[in-house]
């Protein structure tokens, strides 16, 4: 009996019977040209989010191809026989007579991989795509605070990416994504434009980051729906908000640094190059003052996705909501005072000691989040679908990524592991095992909402497991390589390391297979996917109140927030269908409350 009335109320909240009903944001308006123009000039945060998502996935593909090429080159060590024949070098000019030319190609490949993945994929990945799409939806807003600025940051992103990628056409850059001076200010001196294009690309991309961050901060402050206090915000919003603060504060530093680098290259002003009177360690300070906080720009939104997906898919109130929210802010604050741990081998002993101590501070809020996530699973109701499988993969890989940070933050062991494959592995466990796996969890979680289509869950889970296996094969081996003495950014290596390098390369092929299956699964979903219900997972946050896909203005009327984001114990999800979700236990006053329904207790 209770089920009947609640179903009726759920239908009511859906907006049926309110006359004014808007079409989906994906609805075509006229012919092809008109549609393209409509998208290119849109100020709708959802369309901008989708355009970001496709641009970022395309760049992920480019960066991935470069990574596969790097791994392929490392299948065999390069050897020069007594008669000068070169073996084991796969990428080289046809007329190469020394290993130098082939090494040069390898160096350009790993630089391309790093620069694309960091500046064009991981930094914007979650905030610019899923953040753009869901931040206004989750706080019950029609759009971000500055929609035109939002469109501008997309075009700035595209311009920056074109700049950076065009350096390949000019012959490529071999500085590494960190552009360490004085190498970066002197290499390829016969052709300034290569390095300058890549550096200016990163410079321009920084503006896109700042604009997006600014937009989000204002949106969160000003546009929350009535009834949504700070501690009623979904944790994804907390995470995106924390990372937006870092973006706005830290990105100008890299902008200035890259500009100085460009000036030094073109006008020979001595800032970093000792030959001109500069100091290369100064460059490292400048660079990491931005690039360390930005590591948390990369991971915090991923952590936010995990908090939300975990709670919804386990149908459980998140354990220690405030601890997670404050941990996000704490990580953002501490991230600004630990940059020196990238420089234990070039700084003074005192500075290294201080930075090592500060570095351990980051471990604490990170560990707290981990405990809270696992605590949430206790006495929950876990749906083992693709978003949840990716969430579990995240927890597994991120735990390894976080724990392997300990020997790197510890001074005596870091002197051994610094700049080795151990660092490469640690970084990939955190960035790919963390952020990219969280992005995959988020895409699978919100795909039905974004495109109004379901995907094949079984295929997605199989692909996720292949990615998981491939990832561990690729990078677990690299921890061992690093500890055994393999330095990073090496086009070749001594024989001892070949076995592990080979396994690592095989792992990269497995990763390729996994991601290709995902790609086909998504394409199939777009083409022939089943229509998605408005709330397929039974979430309680506001995006699940909107249609799938949402209408152009998100909500038919301004939603009023009457329940917390994770009150699964007492609240019935919007668009609730008793067939799909068990009825929550009644609240103290009688029947359970329907999420965001205007009549809260009847």
């Amino acid at each position, binding site marked *: 009996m209770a089920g009947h009335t609640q179903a009726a109320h759920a239908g009511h909240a859906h907006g049926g019977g309110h006359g004014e009903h808007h079409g989906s944001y994906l609805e075509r308006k006229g012919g092809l040209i008109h549609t393209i123009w409509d998208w290119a000039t849109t100020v709708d945060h959802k369309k901008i989010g989708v355009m970001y998502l496709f641009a970022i996935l395309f760049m992920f593909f480019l960066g991935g191809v470069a990574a596969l090429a790097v791994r392929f080159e490392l299948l065999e060590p*390069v*050897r020069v026989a007594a008669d000068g024949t070169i073996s084991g070098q796969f990428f080289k000019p046809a*007329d190469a007579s*020394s*290993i*130098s030319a082939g*090494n040069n190609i390898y160096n350009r490949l790993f630089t391309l991989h790093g620069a694309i993945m960091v500046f064009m994929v991981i930094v914007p990945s979650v905030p610019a795509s899923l953040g753009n799409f869901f931040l206004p939806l989750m706080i019950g807003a029609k759009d971000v605070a500055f929609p035109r600025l939002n469109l501008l940051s997309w075009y700035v992103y595209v311009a920056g990416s074109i700049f950076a990628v065009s350096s390949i056409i000019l012959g490529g850059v071999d500085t*590494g994504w960190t552009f*360490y001076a*004085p*190498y970066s200010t002197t290499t390829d*001196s016969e052709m300034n434009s290569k390095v300058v294009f890549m550096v200016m690309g990163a410079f321009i991309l920084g503006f896109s980051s700042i604009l997006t961050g600014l937009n989000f901060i204002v949106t969160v402050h000003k546009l929350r729906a009535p009834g949504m206090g700070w501690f009623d915000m979904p944790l994804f919003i907390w995470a995106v908000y924390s990372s937006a603060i870092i973006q706005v504060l830290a990105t100008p530093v890299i902008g200035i640094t890259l500009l100085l680098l460009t000036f030094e290259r073109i006008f020979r002003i001595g800032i970093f190059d*000792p030959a001109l009177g500069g*100091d*290369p360690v100064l460059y490292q300070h400048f660079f990491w003052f931005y690039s360390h906080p930005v590591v948390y720009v990369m991971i915090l939104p991923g952590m936010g996705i995990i908090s939300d997906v975990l709670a919804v898919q386990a*149908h459980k109130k*998140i354990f220690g*909501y405030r601890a997670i929210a404050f941990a996000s802010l704490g990580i953002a604050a501490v991230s600004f005072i630990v940059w020196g741990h990238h420089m234990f081998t*070039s700084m003074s002993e005192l500075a290294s*000691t201080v930075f090592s101590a500060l570095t*351990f501070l980051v471990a604490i809020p990170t560990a707290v989040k981990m*405990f809270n996530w*696992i*605590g949430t*699973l*206790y*006495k*929950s*109701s*876990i*749906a083992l679908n693709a978003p949840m499988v990716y969430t*579990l993969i995240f927890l597994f890989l991120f*735990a390894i990524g976080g*724990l392997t940070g*300990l*020997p790197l*933050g*510890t*001074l*005596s*062991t870091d*002197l*051994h592991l610094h*700049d*080795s494959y151990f660092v490469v592995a640690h970084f990939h466990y955190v960035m790919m095992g963390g952020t990219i796996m969280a992005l995959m969890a988020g895409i699978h979680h919100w795909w039905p909402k974004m495109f109004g289509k379901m995907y094949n869950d079984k295929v997605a889970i199989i692909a996720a497991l292949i990615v998981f296996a491939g990832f561990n094969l690729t990078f677990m081996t690299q921890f*061992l390589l690093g500890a055994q*003495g393999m*330095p*990073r*950014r*090496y086009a*070749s290596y*001594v024989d*001892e390391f*070949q076995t592990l390098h080979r396994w690592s390369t095989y792992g990269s092929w497995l990763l390729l297979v996994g991601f290709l299956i995902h790609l086909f699964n998504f394409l199939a979903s777009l083409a022939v996917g089943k229509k998605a219900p408005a709330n397929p997972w039974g979430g309680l946050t506001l995006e699940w109140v909107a249609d799938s896909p949402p209408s152009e203005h998100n909500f038919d009327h301004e939603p009023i927030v009457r329940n917390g984001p994770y009150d*699964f*114990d007492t609240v019935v999800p919007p668009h609730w269908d008793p067939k799909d979700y068990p*009825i*929550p*236990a009644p609240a103290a006053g009688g029947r359970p409350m329907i999420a965001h329904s205007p009549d809260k207790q009847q």
Partner: protein
Amino acid sequence: MISGFFNMGTPMLGSTAAPLFTAEENLFHRLFFLKSGGSDFAVHTDETYMWIWWFCVAWFVFLMGLMVYFVVKYRRKRGQIAPQSSSHNTALEVAWTVIPTLMLVYIFFRGFWGYMDKVIAPGEALEYTLIGKQWQWQMIYPNGEDTPVVTTLGAKSSVPVYYLPAEVAIRLRMNSQDVMHAFWVPDFRTKQDVLPNRYTTMWFRPKAPPEGAKVHPKSEMEAKSAKSAPFIPGLEGVPYEDHWVFCAEYCGDEHSEMAAILRVVPEDAWKKWMDWVTSGDALKGVPPEKIGEKLYQRNCQSCHSINGSDGTGPSWKNMYGHDAALRDGTSVKVDDNYIRESILNPTAKVVKGYAPAMPVFNLKEKQILQLIAYMKTLSDAPEAKLPTPGLEAAPAAPAAPAAK
């Protein structure tokens, strides 16, 4: 698949019965480090590392165990809702913040103590000078000599081998001639950036070669047959242990070939080795162009070819005695003076089509003449047939050994 995996004489994994929890000589230690540390503070580093490793394993197993248990136990069952439970527990949350924090404090201090050992050299340490340049390491012994011994490693055909005395504290005073490099000795578990604008230092006290270490050959014949250390008079049968040096800070095209070997021998043998190097006996009777060829392999080969192919710098084939067009539009005849200037002041006259990328090479005057003698063997110019002034031709040396 296991090709060459253990060719530095490393024993197989897990071939020991040592207990798992001691830092040295157990399966995990071998998996991570292949062999025990080659210097005394390396042992402390390994202990710290293994301590952190077990700390991480404990936490990881605990967390993942819980996760898997919960996922299995609380899988969603149709028609059933999650049982109610608290979403907040202050005591638990304080405990799981404070306990890891205390453990982290301990890890920090362990690392700090080990770090102090690594960065503070004892006062009586023997001082070596180390120069990093694209793309080679050059170490200068306390008496001002470089090493005459080279070997092959990886793709590089001339990796310098530096002899170090065992059980003696050695301090390196390091600087770079061009970009940043980092001096990493994996077996000593330490590294230090090598900067172009100031000296940096590092120190270590190598352990003596272990039982069953390789020994120096007893004769030239034996040295040729076994791929090992060269024959050195006075060091017959002396045990040695090799340690790699890698460059760990990306420095350009041949970053991965920037290697060296540190060869640790007992202190008395090291003194004999130093006498042998200082006396110049190593080069006695060798024709100057042959010594020049060795110098070329050691210093010049990574950028200059001898077969006419292009490299970072111009090929030396038919360079001597011919005119070279310069970047500034003028041209110069490649003679003794031009070569000497280009070695000591490489950016003064740069050949057209090449970047002014060559570092300064502080060769001795005699070595410069030996290099000139070698360059002459690569050229067909008539001047190349004249003897190099300042070098007495070695008796009965063949005219041009390398020019075919």
